[in-house]
């Protein structure tokens, strides 16, 4: 099994092997970096504004900024990077190009067009010349109503990602014809299982937008059921977090062992893990609605138990990945119970970035367990604890892994050597330190009730009372962390830009990924039966969602009781404000 065709791949970069695909991947990466650059800068604006360190925008514009930050980072940055990496993974591990490169460009362009539509409609919130309103945050809960262009843009983006998935499947089918008896190579297996649950979960948000929100924003129907569209959003909203995470997991499984100088500890377990994600990512979304009215406690309890079992693949990953790193360290001469840690290649920014990202994910795992804990959600729901949590998950485990991976990938797809390894190493360390400050302080804030998504959390009638420390000290840590993160971000972008202007290099590493200690031949063939796992995943979704959805539709109606859209701007709706004022007066 472990046959090598050294001659064909040794010291050949991805660009040498697949020049056409490399171009699309490079484009996708740059789209991703642009979203990261803009989104990250907006993050700094938010952090400084909220903590009252520096306020130069109107509080009303804060929500436009926050919508852009959420959409650009959680949707655009992550998913553009993902489609790039998965295209690399499928083509590299199948050792064949995509079936039709025009199709590949088509989905990439579709995603770009979607992004531009969404971006411009958000921008309308601060630029008077653009007549759109989309201050609805990335969750776009009805009856907050965005301009139709916002919804259309999202749909285009998602459909683009569907076509990307189709591209990977086509490539795999073509390979399958030529290799009828082979096991699916692990990277392709990971990309395909992830794509399958992406199809399954995006069905919810597509339904929500196409059947309800878009017609409603166009005035074709005049009411929505807010709980229904919200539930459909979260049907997608949990699985999407695994969608962000799976490329990072892929990197940890197939790159980290190699970078450590070892092999993946267990290919079969890696497959089990991805199958579990396919099965369990979707029927858990109700855990984002623990505090929603209109959903019976029983359904929340079921979502909670499913969610807890979803910890399993992540806990298994922690073991497998660390064991693979240990394997590498020992092969490099590391010894002792923990002394081998010193033998790891800490000077390599790709390794160190991914390892630190994994470490932060271990911490995020803990706050995630709390978030999953149903009744303890009364303590943390919608507080800054949650924001602290997901800056560790998507904001670091994913983002830092992607940035570290870029130090390896950009040379692979451009043929140009990384401009500065030192700068890259400093960058990943600085991100880690900055996030430690920001995220820790956010978690602490949440515990005394600091709300998320709030421009100026200073209230007239009461003060926050932290059990330990002061609000000022905690805010200072958030602001400091945010500044460090922004500096790290600038270092990353600088390195990427200068790399692009670097001279071509012929001393680049070959396009390879980690071998395995225990290979696919050790795992039952049924693991590769994608049809079976998809069928079970569908059944689990039906079991998990039929009754809650039925009862929501039953009590609130499919289109709700005449609920029209709101665009609650302070200046545009004086009648509403007046009414509010009247209410507070005794």
């Amino acid at each position, binding site marked *: 099994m472990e046959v090598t065709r050294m001659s064909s791949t040794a010291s050949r970069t991805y660009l040498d092997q697949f020049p056409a695909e490399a171009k699309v991947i490079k484009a996708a990466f740059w789209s991703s970096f642009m979203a990261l650059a803009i989104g990250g800068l907006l993050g700094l604006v938010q952090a400084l504004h909220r903590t009252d360190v520096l306020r130069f925008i109107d509080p009303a514009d804060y929500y436009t900024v926050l919508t852009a930050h959420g959409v650009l980072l959680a949707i655009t940055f992550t998913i553009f990077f993902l489609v790039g990496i998965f295209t690399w993974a499928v083509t590299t591990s199948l050792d064949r190009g995509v079936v039709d490169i025009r199709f590949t460009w088509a989905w990439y362009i579709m995603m770009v067009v979607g992004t531009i539509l969404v971006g411009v409609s958000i921008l309308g919130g601060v630029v008077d010349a653009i007549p759109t309103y989309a201050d609805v945050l990335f969750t776009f809960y009805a009856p907050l109503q965005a301009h139709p262009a916002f919804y259309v843009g999202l749909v285009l983006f998602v459909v683009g990602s569907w076509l990307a998935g189709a591209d990977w499947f086509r490539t795999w089918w073509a390979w399958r014809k030529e290799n009828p008896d082979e096991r699916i190579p692990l990277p392709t297996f990971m990309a395909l299982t992830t794509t399958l649950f992406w199809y399954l979960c995006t069905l919810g948000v597509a339904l929500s937008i196409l059947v309800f929100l878009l017609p409603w924003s166009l005035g074709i129907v005049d009411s929505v059921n807010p709980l229904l569209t919200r539930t459909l959003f979260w049907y997608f909203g949990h699985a999407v977090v695994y969608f962000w995470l799976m490329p990072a997991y892929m990197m940890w499984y197939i790159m980290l062992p190699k970078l450590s100088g070892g092999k993946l500890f267990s290919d079969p377990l890696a497959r089990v893990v991805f199958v579990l994600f396919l099965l369990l990512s979707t029927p858990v979304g109700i855990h984002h609605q623990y505090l929603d009215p209109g959903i019976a406690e029983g359904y929340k309890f079921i979502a909670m138990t499913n969610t807890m079992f979803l910890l399993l693949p992540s806990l298994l990953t922690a073991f497998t990945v660390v064991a693979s790193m240990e394997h590498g360290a020992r092969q490099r001469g590391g010894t002792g119970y923990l002394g081998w840690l010193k033998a790891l290649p800490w000077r390599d920014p790709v390794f160190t970035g991914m390892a630190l990202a994994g470490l932060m994910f271990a911490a995020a795992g803990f706050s995630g367990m709390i978030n999953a804990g149903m009744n303890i959600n009364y303590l943390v729901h919608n507080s800054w604890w949650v924001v602290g949590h997901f800056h560790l998950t998507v904001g670091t485990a994913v983002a830092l892994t992607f940035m570290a991976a870029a130090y390896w990938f950009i040379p692979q797809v451009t043929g140009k050597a990384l401009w500065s390894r030192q700068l890259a190493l400093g960058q990943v360390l600085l991100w880690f330190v900055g996030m430690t400050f920001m995220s820790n302080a956010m978690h602490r804030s949440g515990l005394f009730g600091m709300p998320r998504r709030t421009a100026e959390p200073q209230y007239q009638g009461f003060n926050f009372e932290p059990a330990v420390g002061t609000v000022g000290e905690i805010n200072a840590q958030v602001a400091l962390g945010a500044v460090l993160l922004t500096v790290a971000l600038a270092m990353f972008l600088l390195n990427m830009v200068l790399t692009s202007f670097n001279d071509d290099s012929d001393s680049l590493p070959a396009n390879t990924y980690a*071998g395995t200690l225990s290979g696919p031949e050790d795992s039952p063939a049924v693991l590769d039966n994608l049809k079976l796992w998809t069928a079970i995943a569908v059944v689990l979704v039906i079991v998990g969602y039929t009754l809650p959805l039925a009862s929501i539709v039953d009590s609130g109606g499919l289109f709700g009781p005449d609920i029209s859209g709101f665009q609650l701007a302070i200046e545009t709706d004086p009648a509403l404000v007046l009414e509010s004022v009247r209410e507070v007066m005794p």
Partner: protein
Amino acid sequence: MASATEQSETDQVREIGHEEYDPIGTAILIGIYFLILVLLWLFMYFVEFLGNGPTVVGALLTVVGLA
């Protein structure tokens, strides 16, 4: 296939196969992680959460006198 998997590593001083490899360091690290998780969970649930009352309770239970 498997052509793209890494086979040689320049810094490698020895080759360790699956049979001869015991990830003892990993077992230790993950054991420590396990302990941290358990302790923090107990702290968060019983101190931070249950100590943060008042809390939403079921009307039925309180009638029975569980308060």
